[in-house]
């Protein structure tokens, strides 16, 4: 399936979890993919990933919370590729705990990575994406990775909830703005339920440390059982939805929120 032949994509948080699954999927569909993440370009992990993924992939060191780094990133994409069709704002962190004891710094950090970064990435990639999108049938496509926690609340996840809720409405605001101005950029949000990712595993490990009653494995089985479809998602299943939104098949979809949660929020 080569729906994305000739397209260029940038995926933040592209080294692991939903990010790397998305990178793999976009490459399969024929796109050239820039992996953006925090590690240094000569890091062993980065080198291993690039070697495995092959020539259509490249790496860009990017702290998504740093405006100057986004400016430099956009300039390098313009210089090296001359276009940007797809931006997947995927980098994200969690932040759990009761509000009354949560350090303000935790809140600010989660908001910076999950929410500020969408503003910065969108702000600095929009000019190049608009130039590209006006020349492409289905337009350029920004895909913001929110969460079902951007739609419903969760106990002791207040900064994560707030940041993912911000992602949901930032998506709608920019979708309207870009459509009205005829900029040729579609913007949509994806709302995964629970996905078997390192972020989930780390969250469970921490939760297990804080609450001696449960192990991380028990928490995962509980989540499987609580999901109507009976299991958590694989990262590739979220990547499939992202690839759909990136493709011309989604040419009339903008401002939409695509929930991929195994029925979690329907129950």
């Amino acid at each position, binding site marked *: 399936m080569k729906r994305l032949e000739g397209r260029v994509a940038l995926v933040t948080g592209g080294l692991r979890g939903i990010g790397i699954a998305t990178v793999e999927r976009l490459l399969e569909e024929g796109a050239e993919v820039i992996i953006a993440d925090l590690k240094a370009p000569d890091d062993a992990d980065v080198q291993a990933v690039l070697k495995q993924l092959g020539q259509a992939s490249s790496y860009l060191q990017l702290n998504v919370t740093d405006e100057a780094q986004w400016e430099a990133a956009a300039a390098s994409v313009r210089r090296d590729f001359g276009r940007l069709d797809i931006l997947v704002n995927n980098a994200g962190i969690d932040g759990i705990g009761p509000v009354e004891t949560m350090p303000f710094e935790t809140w600010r950090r989660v908001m910076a990575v999950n929410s500020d970064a969408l503003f910065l990435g969108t702000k600095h990639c929009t000019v190049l994406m608009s130039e590209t999108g006006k020349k492409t049938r289905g337009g350029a496509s920004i895909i913001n990775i929110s969460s079902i926690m951007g739609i419903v609340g969760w106990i002791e996840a207040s900064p994560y909830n707030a940041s993912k809720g911000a992602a949901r409405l930032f998506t709608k605001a920019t979708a309207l703005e870009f459509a009205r101005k005829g900029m040729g950029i579609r913007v949509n949000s994806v709302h995964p339920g629970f996905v078997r990712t390192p972020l989930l595993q780390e969250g469970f490990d921490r939760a297990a440390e804080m609450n001696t009653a449960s192990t991380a494995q028990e928490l995962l089985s509980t989540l499987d059982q609580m999901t109507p479809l009976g299991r958590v*998602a694989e990262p590739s299943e979220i990547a499939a939805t992202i690839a759909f939104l990136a493709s011309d*098949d989604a040419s009339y979809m903008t*401002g939409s929120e695509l929930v991929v949660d195994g029925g979690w929020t329907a129950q």
Partner: protein
Amino acid sequence: MSKRLEGKVALITGGTSGIGAAAVRRLASEGAKVAFTGSNAEAAAALCAETGASFHPHRVQNADAWPVLMEELHKLYGRLDIAFANAGMEAGDSNIEEIDVNNWNNIIAVNQTGVMLTVQHAMRAMKKNPEGSGGSIIVNSSMNANRAMGNFLAYSVTKTAVCAIVKSSAIHCALTGTKIRVNAVLPGVVETAMITNLINQQEDPVATRKAYESMSPMRRMAKVEEIAGLVAFLASDEAAFISGAEYVIDGATTAGTMGV
């Protein structure tokens, strides 16, 4: 076109025109065997010749006709993997002060009871698939499920109601472990024959067309093929983790408030 749907059998209600016909074409092009229903035999014959699909004259609101249809499909195909509950109408709709109760009942019968019957019978068939229960059911709702129209009371009501049918059915499938996914698509204004006729009946068709186009900030209506692309995605195994969801496809019409 890729062959994501090779080996799958699909049923599409209201398949002779508009979004339904586009879905017949799209699912067939992705490798599915397609059966569709409706009442316009002439349009159906042309679509069958073009796509290799089979046509089954049938009205979704007629409960007694459903077992007959499903028996026919079972004999022809032996399985069912995809159902697109698409048949819908708005003829005779009006505002709350003026709507005629017979027209109200007709719209409820087709748009709501018809969808319920489609989901019910599709699910029964999917549970009997040779290798075990499984399938994907897609219901055609409307962005008006989220934004009721003053002059289309019954349409707005039924398009909201079918979202509840979708969620209830998705949860039922989950609770009973049937491996059947149920989702809704909520299109904005789509350039179908139904809309074109409505536009042409107005005093000033040009202005009416412009008004419809301006509902989306993209300043155009959706093409039927664009809705069919989303239906094909939800029908495929690509959407294996998606159930009980409502996917809006409206060019950001309902992402903001009216007047944006």
